[in-house]
């Protein structure tokens, strides 16, 4: 157990080890299989194009990147038997639009799957998610043409939905620096910054030991299947082969952010007695909800005002805990705030030491990108294409969403949800620790709506080759 097996980087898709930060243009193509033989042929041609983590390790900066992921129904469409699909976890098999999952995720009301643009019960079944990245708009279009548009007719697949993204800013649409706290993979490449957690590879890649020092459950196929001899034999069951090795689960969610309503709400809560607006107070209140200032500076380290130097400094902007940095009570960064919920660090019971261990068992690799589009009434719609990688949907993504963000009882609170991204419905409130007593911001609306999404599996390269087998 002491020796860490090296990551099989050439078999791991590139998205696992990089977010392609130098490629601001991306396109997400949601495809459905119409004809299995055609789809397999299309996939066979695509496999050599897939970006792997091995390529990344060679240090040259590519101009484009291609990754691919599948829903459970998609795997079945590529010929996987029901028995084999049943070796995947329940959450993945059910899919994000299933009623059980919606309850866990808080996808209700306007955010319910029945209202979605993609991935919902009435918007067409999703089978394949093709992720395209490029350094330029032109490069993205050329790539997309070559791999999809020019050959789509007769490919055996149809396009269900597409979503483009241009990462024009380091800030998310509400105006806050995004993507600061990100765990590193043990044995992966890249420099570890102060305060960054280095987690066992098994948290993010199947086939490796996780933070519990055990192997995550391994999806497998019948070893008698033709073509399955490509895959490694299962260590626990000689009649199975490991389909999941070097793969991981990808959560994809389109989250629209009501920027106007967000800042209007801050304004309405901070107006002076004479009715005048105060921009600084609005930003201060919004920052209390986020837990960081717009620059990214954490409130725990910068309690009174923004510190852009701190916010921009990757060596310092994530190097903190709450209790260890004298913010146990939440007077600087409220207990209710977004970053204290999504990564509680040392604040969970029974004590900081245990909390540090437990917090690390629910982390995500975030790969999100912003989007902006014109909606029918001529207005702009902005938001985030939330993407996250994890080896256990229930213990990682769903847990954070259900037990930390949407729980009104998080860390001893009475009735407060994540003020930024929870399923608030206008009746809840936000509690800000203050002296002499807490301040309660009433009538918290839902600022972020779910517009679509799905659970995908991002297989290893060898598993992709297995899928192309006739």
């Amino acid at each position, binding site marked *: 157990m002491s020796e860490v097996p090296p990551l099989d980087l050439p078999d791991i898709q590139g998205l696992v080890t990089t977010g392609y930060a130098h490629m601001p243009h991306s396109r997400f193509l949601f495809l459905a299989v119409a004809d299995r033989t055609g789809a397999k042929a299309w996939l066979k041609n695509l496999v050599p194009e897939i970006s792997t983590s091995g390529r990344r390790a060679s240090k040259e900066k590519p101009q484009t990147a291609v990754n691919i992921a599948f829903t459970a129904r998609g795997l079945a469409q590529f010929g996987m038997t029901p028995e084999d699909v049943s070796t995947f976890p329940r959450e993945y098999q059910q899919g994000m639009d299933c009623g*059980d999952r919606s*309850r*866990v995720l808080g996808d209700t009301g306007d955010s319910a799957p029945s209202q979605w643009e993609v991935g919902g019960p009435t918007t067409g079944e999703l089978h394949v998610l093709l992720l395209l990245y490029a350094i330029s708009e032109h490069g993205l279009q050329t790539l997309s043409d070559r791999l999809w548009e020019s050959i789509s007719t007769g490919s055996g697949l149809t396009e269900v939905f597409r979503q483009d993204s241009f990462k024009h800013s380091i800030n998310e649409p509400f105006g806050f620096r995004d993507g600061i706290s990100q765990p590193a993979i043990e044995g992966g490449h890249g420099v570890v910054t102060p305060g960054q957690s280095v987690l066992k590879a098994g948290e993010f890649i199947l086939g490796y030991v996780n933070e*519990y*020092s*055990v192997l*995550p*459950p391994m999806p497998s196929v019948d070893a008698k299947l033709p073509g399955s001899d490509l895959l490694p034999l299962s260590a626990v069951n000689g009649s199975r082969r490991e389909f999941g090795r070097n793969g991981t689960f990808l959560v994809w969610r389109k989250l629209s952010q009501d920027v106007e309503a967000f800042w209007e709400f801050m304004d309405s809560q901070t107006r002076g007695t004479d009715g005048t607006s105060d921009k600084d107070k609005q930003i201060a209140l919004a920052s209390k909800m986020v837990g960081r200032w717009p620059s990214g500076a954490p409130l725990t380290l910068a309690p009174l005002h923004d510190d852009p130097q701190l916010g921009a400094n990757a060596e310092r902007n994530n190097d903190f805990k709450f209790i260890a940095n004298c913010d146990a*009570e939440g007077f600087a960064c409220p207990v209710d705030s977004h970053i204290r919920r999504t990564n509680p660090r040392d604040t969970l*019971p*029974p004590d900081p030491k*245990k909390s540090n*261990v*437990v917090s690390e*068992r629910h982390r995500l690799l975030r790969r999100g990108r912003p989007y902006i589009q014109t909606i029918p009434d001529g207005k702009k719609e902005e938001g985030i294409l939330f993407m996250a990688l994890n080896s256990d949907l*229930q*213990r990682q993504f*769903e*847990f954070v969403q*259900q*037990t930390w963000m949407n*729980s*009104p*009882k998080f*860390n*001893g609170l*009475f009735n407060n949800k994540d003020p930024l991204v929870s399923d608030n419905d206008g009746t809840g409130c936000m509690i800000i*620790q*203050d*002296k*002499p*007593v*807490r*301040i*309660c911001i*009433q009538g918290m609306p839902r600022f972020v709506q779910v517009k679509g999404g799905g659970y995908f599996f991002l297989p290893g390269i060898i598993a992709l080759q297995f899928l192309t087998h006739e």
Partner: protein
Amino acid sequence: MIQSALTIITRIKPEQLPALEKLLDEIGGSVQSNGYIPFTKIASLHFACWVILKDDLQFPPTLVFENNHDGDNETHLDEFIAGSLAGLNAIYSVCEDYSFPTGANPAQMKRYLLDHSVACPAFYVGVPGQSLVGIRNAIAVRTEIEAMLDSAPMKGLSQEAAYARIVDHIRESYSTKPIVSPETLDQQSGRAKRNIVITALIGLPILILVFPFLIVWFIMLRMHETKDLRTQNKPSLPIDPRLFEKEDIFIQNHLTTLVNVKPGAFRLYTLKTVLWLINLLAKTYFITGHLGGIPTIHFARWILMDNDRRLLFFSNYDGSWASYLGDFVDKANYGLTGVWSNTENFPPAKYLFVGGAQHIEEFKQWSREHNIYPPVWYSAYPDETLWNLQKDIRIRDTAGQPLQGAELEKFLQLL
């Protein structure tokens, strides 16, 4: 007032099983307002639950009722039966040993239930000594203070001035007079610390005395564990889909886990000893709102049934199933493994306490496969977490006392 656990086990007449299931679904479907059991009116009832055990065909179909209540069983049953006699007759008339053609009268029903009640070898209470009346009072006091804070913000006031307003408000309020706990939470945690010292002082000499026996026991244990590893043949059991439907709807959830004890006297007596130890700790040390580090359990118990061949675990907890099971593994895996490694199909354990529940995925799968769906489950305060309750009790017990400095600051932070 002391909280108790009542467990009643009855055999169901096999032909009546469908009728009973239908009846319990009807009661459980509107647990707050059904026509059979007026749960909300029973002033001594914290939690209650009926489950049907029928999947293991080695055993006849069985109905188990478990509740958590104030005071002794007899007094509680008097109150329970007084409002629920017709409902209880409807439920138990389909069970064996029920011989009341025109329905049992209150005294007969009480006798019948007590005759079928079983002892509880290990029982844990999240907030010991807090009666339902007291809990409701604490919730009301805190809710009232909160409402007052929200209607008149205190920004700019000194701590002392803010506290004076709160105290005045409670004094003026005639609806909720604080009923202060006989033993405060601080006194309780002091008692826990003293108890652990006393237990160690008594326990250590005993341990030294029985050490030779322990060595023999340990060698036997390792032999059993090695044998279990060789014969480990873990069938995959079906999971009741209804479990998912009732989960994560309220803040609190209920967990029933039913397993078969490994055959042989060695495992049974080891299990009984571990349960005895857990019970001892639950009464002496785990009296401050956590069971082995898990801070979300209101009540928990283990019951041996069917001539000690089956072990039943009941608990009422806060949050999602996934977070509860995660807590088991993160915080209490040794203790739980110590219990359940003596039962069949549990993930392999070493030295009684190691392994087992540390295998998180196997442990979760094992739990799902052995969880029993509760058709009827009632909580008297379904929106309160244990953490909430502890804050409520602290607020209620402290508000009105002369507080200053750090003590005052601590009080105001509870809100």
